[in-house]
């Protein structure tokens, strides 16, 4: 999630966030693996039912260009349109300066969203 969050930085995650609010596009969220101890920090770039794609490093949702001020020096990602399934969100990290193959991103179930960092 660099440059927004430094690698190895300590973050405090509010686990009740999504009990009160629905996840919104551009929210930063903690995503769990099996269990609750290992997590990824990612940003929601598209919500369920939307179509997401990357053209030359730029994000498009439902064919509309989305400005991402938190991304600097994006690599030329090209991802064909993907439909975000029911109960899922599409996530990507802010560090897009690496090739697409070396970056963990994609859609996941909202059940895996543990919460959001407090700051």
């Amino acid at each position, binding site marked *: 999630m660099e440059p927004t969050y430094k690698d190895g930085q300590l973050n405090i995650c509010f686990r009740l966030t999504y009990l009160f609010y629905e996840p919104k596009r551009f929210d930063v969220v903690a*995503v769990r*693996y*099996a*269990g*609750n*101890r*290992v997590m*990824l920090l*990612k940003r929601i770039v598209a919500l369920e039912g939307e179509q997401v794609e990357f053209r030359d490093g730029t994000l498009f949702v439902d064919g509309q260009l989305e400005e991402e001020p938190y991304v600097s020096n994006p690599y030329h990602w090209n*991802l064909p349109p*993907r439909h975000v399934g029911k109960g899922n969100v599409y*996530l990507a990290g802010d560090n897009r300066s690496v090739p697409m193959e070396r970056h*963990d*991103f*994609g*859609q*996941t179930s909202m059940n*895996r969203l543990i919460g959001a960092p407090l700051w």
Partner: protein
Amino acid sequence: MVKSKPVIIVLFVGVISIIVFCFFFQTEERQVRKRFKIFTQTASKHAKDSQLIVAGKSKKISTFFAQTCQIEAREYNVSKDYTQQNVRTIAFHVLTRYSKLDLKFIDLKIDIPEKGIATAVSTARIIGKVKGTEKSMEENHEIDCRLRKIDDEWVFEKVELIDVLKK
């Protein structure tokens, strides 16, 4: 007057049966948990391990797998059946590639759906250093496994790497 002795005996036998039943399944779960622990110790590599030790570890790692083990890792396009010999060869290549390797199973959850069969879900964390460059590597993978008890040993019959994020 109700005869209390037979009732007490029936209750006692019932309680003992439940305890024995629970203990039996807990034992199988414990066996699987211990198997995972030994596997992590075997699969981890220390900087001082010689090629001979690596060869020995590779052989031992293969014994943790069934004669044929189904491995599904769609992210890496390596979904197929692996023989013990395949596992041994891969283990040797991986252990040779790294000067140091540490494997941990975090949040290991084990279920025994039937006698002699176990399912396990966990997050496998691999931390290592590439030989030569000493470049650090850290990977986390959610795994879903099925183990079978064969000749009193639990072996992996199926291992699936779960795609937490699907591109």
